[in-house]
């Protein structure tokens, strides 16, 4: 069903540029609230740097804790942004237009936040950077390419570079639009970023082809990145980590949490920026249908992971799996993952009237990501804190207030960066919305006039 409103060129520009020129009270609340949490984040990180990793709950053998869990979570969130954008561009889905820009930006900020975690997790990041940049080649030392900790940064940096270029390329026409409508520092900034864009046919043709080409190239990278992140765990010998199913399982989990995060973002943009004409109920309906399939796929891999751990009847795998499924607090966590990740949201999404309810979509998407964060913790921690053969020492992991602050602060960081972005750049692609208006037509079908999209194939 097409619920598109016929909007004039000037109306689209004015409405989509509104966040750049006006700051609503809700945005101020967002800036101040997120800024306050961000200040706590900065304080917690500074505290940890000053006193050392002893202020965290990390100890042998729990050397990976909340920060690495959060790293995996944010990598996951980053995935669906570009995935949604790329798939919708490749298939020329008309409902992509209001979603792609925000989803791509979310990808970039989530990736940056994710990359921050392994760095601060070292406790003394400046020492790490000292040994890495420049690399100590003069002593004939080289990175060991056989280790996943070299694959991981190479994949993430490829993804971050690709996503940033993807976003920037599609933003050039809007930079030209902003250049022609602003003065002062903004005009200087947009003039530089617009690169002298004039909007001739050749430039538009290249822009269209670039959308397809970059989408086609970024999709395999997106699949590879979370596979490689999963190998940080899967190529080790820690029970329950050492599983071949990890790569697709991580990818589908990333899509589940990431698409849900896109829903959260869509709802927030609708409420904060009053983009009701652009982010319409039909968009929530469409993405809700996608989420049913993705969520069910994720459930299948979740069960497969448990099944593969149990089926070979290996004592060490069974030991950890028994711990994860039946012992406090992981038994509760297992239930939470099932309930929050699937059994509450998916049955709700089956009904169209709920998919078209923004509040319900918002809260169910939040629920999914609470479940998915718990799932990351559930996947990573039990294997480290449990005794099995050849374990020298074992201990419980109890996150400290510093780690909790870092996790909460990471959410504030992404939210704050998204708000800052929307104050400088239009959060919905203006030229793509206008292009959509060119394709929107009213067709006479019998005695009725229906809204339709006319497109050449």
């Amino acid at each position, binding site marked *: 069903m097409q619920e598109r409103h016929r909007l004039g060129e000037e109306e689209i520009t004015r409405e989509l540029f509104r966040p750049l020129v006006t700051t609503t009270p809700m945005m101020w609340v967002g800036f101040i609230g997120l800024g306050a949490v961000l200040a706590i984040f900065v304080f917690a990180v500074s505290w940890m740097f000053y006193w050392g990793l002893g202020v965290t709950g990390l100890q042998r053998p729990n050397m990976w804790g909340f920060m690495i869990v959060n790293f995996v979570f944010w990598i996951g969130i980053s995935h669906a942004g570009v995935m949604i954008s790329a798939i919708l561009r490749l298939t020329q889905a008309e409902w992509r237009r209001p979603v792609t820009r925000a989803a791509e930006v979310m990808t970039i900020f989530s990736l940056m936040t994710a990359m921050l975690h392994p760095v601060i997790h070292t406790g003394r990041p400046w020492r790490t950077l000292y040994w890495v940049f420049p690399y100590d080649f003069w002593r004939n030392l080289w990175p060991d390419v056989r280790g996943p900790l070299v694959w991981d940064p190479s994949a993430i940096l490829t993804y971050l570079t690709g996503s940033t270029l993807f976003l920037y390329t599609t933003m050039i026409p809007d930079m030209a639009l902003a250049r022609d409508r602003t003065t002062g520092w903004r005009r200087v900034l947009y003039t530089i970023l617009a690169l002298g864009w004039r*909007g001739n046919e050749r430039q538009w043709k290249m822009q269209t082809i670039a959308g397809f080409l970059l989408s086609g190239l970024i999709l395999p990278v997106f699949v590879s990145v979370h596979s490689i992140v999963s190998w940080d765990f899967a190529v080790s010998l820690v029970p329950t980590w050492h599983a071949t199913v990890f790569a697709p399982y991580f990818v589908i989990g990333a899509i589940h949490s990431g698409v849900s995060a896109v829903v959260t973002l869509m709802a927030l943009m609708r409420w904060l920026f009053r983009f009701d004409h652009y982010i319409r109920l039909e968009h929530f309906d469409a993405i809700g249908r996608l989420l049913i399939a993705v969520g069910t796929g994720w459930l299948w891999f979740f069960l497969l992971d448990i099944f593969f751990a149990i089926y070979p009847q290996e004592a060490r795998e069974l030991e950890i799996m028994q711990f994860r499924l039946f012992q406090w607090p992981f038994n509760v966590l297992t239930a939470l993952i099932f309930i929050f990740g699937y059994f509450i949201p998916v049955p709700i999404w089956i009904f169209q009237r709920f998919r078209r309810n923004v509040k319900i979509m918002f809260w169910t998407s939040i629920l999914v990501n609470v479940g998915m964060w718990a799932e990351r913790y559930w996947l990573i921690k039990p294997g480290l804190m449990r005794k099995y053969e050849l374990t020298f020492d074992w201990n419980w992991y109890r996150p400290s207030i510093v780690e909790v602050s870092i996790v909460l602060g990471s959410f504030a960081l992404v939210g704050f960066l998204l708000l800052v972005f929307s104050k400088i750049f239009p959060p919905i692609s203006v*030229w793509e919305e206008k292009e959509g208006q060119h394709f929107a037509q009213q067709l006479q079908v019998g005695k009725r006039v229906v809204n339709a999209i006319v497109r050449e194939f």
Partner: protein
Amino acid sequence: MAIREVLGLYRDLDSAVAAADALREAGFSRSEFEVLSNAPYPEGTFGEESGIHRLFVFPLIGAACGFAAGLLITGGTQLSFPLLTGGKPLLSIPPMIIIMYEGTMLGALIFTVLGVLFESRLPWIGRALYDPRITQGYIGILVRTAPEREAKAIEALRKANPEDILTENGNVGKQPARS
């Protein structure tokens, strides 16, 4: 040979299409004028656009460069620091594939964007007639022609009810000046 520019500004699509038709009827080839707009129109709206491009070559070159860089980094580091592990071959192919794959994709992505910029002739720092009203929704028809055909171009553009006609010497108005 000197080239003169004339820019006709049109408020709506029908007028702009009429202007393109008028230019063709006046003997201007498609390569002599271009259409400036704030959003893409379906291909062929203003007639067949001239100009071939080689954008598809860029990702292939980038992929080859990225693959070579990946091979050099992975193979080179293992050979430069030959550390035999458990009697296994020095060059470990599976992890090399991972880095080479990422290198290939990174090269392809970077070169695609470079290709898009190159084929779009960006960054554009030269001078060309332009009007900010184009990003507001007006459609511009920019004619590049010999000085002796400038008047003919203006005349053709005027037939399609323009909002304004700009030349390098300024605004010449949508109607001819009365003598």
